[in-house]
């Protein structure tokens, strides 16, 4: 159970502890200083642009930034460089030395009841970015009382990757479509919890969205114009997300 706390005379639901990531090796200390620090290596999965996801790296970094702004439990990642240029390194969620398993379909009801706010936030977020590939791309601890971890990963097939053509993807983001025909938490999340996340998304400002989407110059295959177009499309979608979800309420939310 989350640890609730008092603030301004009210009981506040404690936010989640940030997930931890797998350290592979701890190396030498960095040297003298006020803090104790060491070099280390972390486990990560590298995501490259490919034929199926030509804007995959861009989609990953934008989804991560948006998720962090919205406090959606997405696994962290970083941009890095390989021979192929910039790639996205998705950090492996887990504890020392071990990664957590991906959630199984049969575990989803338990995950949704253990992490109701997080599951609802993820539904709203995935509908916002048009993530049609959530499936089991999710880590969640469900059987260890002391380990509270919920982290979603893999957002390469969203945003500009909804369709093969990025322009078509943008058009779909601008439409009133739900975009998703399936989501692991459809039917498992409460209306109230989804509404809270939708309200938070609706409050996103134009500047916040642009800071997540626009990098000031072309990023790999994504031109600056297209980045601005995505920011605009997301802003429109954020403002009408509530109506989009209301139109598909039977599919999305758990029945009372």
């Amino acid at each position, binding site marked *: 159970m989350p640890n609730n706390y008092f603030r301004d005379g009210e009981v506040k639901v404690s936010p989640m502890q940030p997930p931890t990531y797998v350290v592979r090796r701890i190396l030498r200390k960095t040297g003298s200083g006020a803090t104790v620090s060491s070099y280390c290596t972390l*486990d990560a*999965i590298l995501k490259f642009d490919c034929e199926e996801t030509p804007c995959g790296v861009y989609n990953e970094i934008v989804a991560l930034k948006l998720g962090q702004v919205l406090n959606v439990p997405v696994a962290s990642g970083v941009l890095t460089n390989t021979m192929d240029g910039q790639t996205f390194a998705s950090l*492996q969620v*887990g*504890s*020392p*030395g*071990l*990664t*957590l*398993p*991906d959630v*199984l*379909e*049969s*575990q989803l009801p338990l995950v949704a009841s253990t992490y109701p706010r997080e599951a609802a936030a993820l539904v709203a977020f995935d509908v916002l970015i048009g993530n049609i590939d959530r499936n*089991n791309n999710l880590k969640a*601890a*469900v*059987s*260890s009382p*002391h*380990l509270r971890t919920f982290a979603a990963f893999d957002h390469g097939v969203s945003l500009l990757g909804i369709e093969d053509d990025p322009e078509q993807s943008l058009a779909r983001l601008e439409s009133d479509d739900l975009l998703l025909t399936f989501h692991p938490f459809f039917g498992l999340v409460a209306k109230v919890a989804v509404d809270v996340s939708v309200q938070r998304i609706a409050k996103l400002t134009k500047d916040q969205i642009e800071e997540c989407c626009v990098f000031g110059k072309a990023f790999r295959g994504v031109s600056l114009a297209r980045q601005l177009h995505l920011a605009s499309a997301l802003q429109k979608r954020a403002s009408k997300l509530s109506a989009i979800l209301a139109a598909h309420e039977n599919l999305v939310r758990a029945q009372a």
Partner: protein
Amino acid sequence: MPGYRLIQFSAHPVYASPVNVGVLVWSGHEAYLKMLGIEDDASFRPHLYLHLAMGQQVAEEVLQEWSAWFQALTEDPRRLDEEGRRDLDRLAESGGPFSCANHGQIDCEQDDLSLVVEDLFQKCVLNNSTVRRLMLQDRLLQILEEIELAGLADTVIDAELELVPKKGLGTGLLYFPWFYRGDKVKAAIKLVDFDQDAVMVVQQVSEAMGAFDMALERKILTREECVVVASGDASQFSQYAKWLQSRAIVLDVADRIGTRSFFLQVLTKNAL
């Protein structure tokens, strides 16, 4: 035809060799999982994996999650033919710690599935001498935990008669203290698995006898404080068993009641 998978554990994707730790067999609406650490009541004992990690730091909670994951997989046997199979395939790409490299189909009747999983587990998992030894240690630990010596678990893992320098008695003396609620219980435990191959059995027996001989000769331990916890069929090594009995109390780990009552007596005798 029923399908099967061998479950392997590897604490490090590069340095550690995978060790067979479980078997999953399924057909139609039935699935059977036999895996190290998962007890009959579905509870999970992570200690075995901590030792298989061989020095790598691993989190018990994450192992617990993996145990739940494999058990959840078997709750929906029909899924194992398609989506579940893909879930298992993805394990190898996920960087561990578990993977399912070996798989195939078994020519057997549906009614025999539970027997097949036991047989596969015996052949593929328990044939590994390291695993067998860890199993023996863990069964002893379970007995000790039953008599509320749980806090000693870590000590017992290293219960190969530690050589601890002791002031006033010289160095290199055999001394294995247990501390329990302020009581001090002294005993020395050696593990002998009679189901190992003959060379391994001889090695274990000679180690135990050498250690106990020294302890008895130097009057550090009495015979009642020298304990061999054994598993497997000792009848093939009857002479070795006799030698051990001449120097130590020999307990069969399969005899849970007898083993438990012995350690209870030791505790009672040493109570303040």
